[in-house]
């Protein structure tokens, strides 16, 4: 703490094309990618990341800065197209986008609940995801919306579902020579809705616990549901089995209560500096209940 300058001595690289960046990753060792830097520089200052020989700033790569609707199939989009986010798009750039706000309101809400304006002006969603914190706010609704990541290296490209990207705190599916080059949020079908709820000391703080829900509705039935939670596991958690088990069921208060209890029983949260496991477990069922109701209403459904 209180370091005057960054502890590590490193060389600064600023490629201007993606090809150049991928070559650096393929050839050099101990490279850290800098997009916004609001997490990376902090972690380097605090010494939680050690041994960095190169910091590669990707902000100079113009082709990586975008946040817009796109209908190219290669980014993993569905029939409806996808909203694609480049790795250097800042959090505020994403949240201020009209298409994102209209199609993915829960994503917008989660981003605006992150840190302060001046941090969001710099920090990126790609950075938040690659930082792989179990509490990553932007990852929670993105998992629910079915986000697909494009990972690229000189060997080629591959698409990974966001929920499969995380391996543990700070650990991801990225190979040493790979970088995250696109985040695709598939455009949701009609009759769908989502919710994001975060419990923290004050809103811009890091969450004690967070929840995302996406529901696609077929009349009074749940056609498809995806629940994700932050800060209850070593990674942003997709509550897969319970979510998938809701498909085809009639939505009502009994189902909501039952699902909330199932989630609560399945979680094994830990205690840390933000709160303890008892609180996380106790509040989880309340969040699931609220989230399911909210997402259902946002999908145009009614609850008796």
């Amino acid at each position, binding site marked *: 703490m209180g370091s005057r300058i960054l502890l590590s001595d*490193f060389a600064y690289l600023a490629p201007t094309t993606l090809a150049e960046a991928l070559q650096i990753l393929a050839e050099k060792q101990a490279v850290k990618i800098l997009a916004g830097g609001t997490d990376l520089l902090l972690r380097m200052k605090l010494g939680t990341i050690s041994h960095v020989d190169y910091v590669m700033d990707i902000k100079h790569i113009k082709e990586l800065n975008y946040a817009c609707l796109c209908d190219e199939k290669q980014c993993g989009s569905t029939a409806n197209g996808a909203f694609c986010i480049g790795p250097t798009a800042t959090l505020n750039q994403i949240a201020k986008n009209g298409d994102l706000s209209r199609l993915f309101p829960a994503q917008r809400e989660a981003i605006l609940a992150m840190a302060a304006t*001046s941090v969001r002006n710099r920090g990126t969603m790609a950075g938040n995801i690659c930082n792989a914190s179990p509490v990553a706010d932007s990852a929670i609704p993105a998992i629910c919306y079915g986000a697909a990541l494009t990972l690229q290296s000189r060997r080629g490209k591959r698409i990974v579902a966001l929920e499969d990207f995380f391996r543990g705190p700070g650990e991801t599916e990225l190979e040493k020579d790979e970088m995250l080059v696109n985040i695709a949020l598939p455009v949701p079908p009609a009759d769908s809705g989502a919710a994001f709820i975060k419990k923290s000391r004050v809103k811009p703080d890091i969450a004690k616990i967070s929840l995302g829900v996406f529901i696609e509705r077929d009349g009074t039935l749940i056609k498809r549901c995806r629940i994700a939670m932050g800060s209850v596991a070593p990674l942003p958690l997709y509550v897969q089995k319970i979510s998938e088990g809701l498909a085809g069921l009639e939505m009502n208060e009994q189902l909501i209560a039952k699902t909330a209890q199932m989630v609560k029983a399945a979680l094994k949260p830990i205690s840390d500096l933000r709160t303890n496991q008892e609180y996380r477990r106790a509040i989880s069922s309340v969040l699931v209940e609220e989230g399911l109701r909210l997402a259902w209403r946002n999908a145009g459904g009614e609850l008796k």
Partner: protein
Amino acid sequence: MSGTLQISLKINGESRVLHTAAHSSLLNLLRDNGYFDVKCGCEQGDCGACTVLLDGIAVKSCVILAMNCDGHEVRTIKGLGGHDRLTSRLQKAFVEHGAIQCGFCTPGMIIAAGDYLRHDGRADREQIRRAMSGNLCRCTGYQKIIDAVYEVAAELESEVCG
């Protein structure tokens, strides 16, 4: 390995060529070159005392590498007060409301408030609190700061509507 690097940037409207190290933050670069109006607080992106405008957008200079700013434009509070009308109004309102005590957080507060008002910020106390949440003050208890920003926001609204 880092050595000395050269960086060209515009600070407060003036083109500067400066020397820095790869590991130097924008905050270090500015203070090393005499821009002491940029305050060094927590150095962890929390307190907001080091807030400056980078290409017209408010950022925390302690979590930005100096080298990131090569070819970009930086404005500190000294480059805004007296030059930018909105900043001057905010400064005046801060003084009139007693929103300044020790003054350490003030440059960052004024820049954050200006950023809020320039981006369609409304005269809404809750929104103002949210917008200023990345700037900490240990003297005033915030109320007077919120009052000062609210007053300027309300004046701007009445000017647009009236």
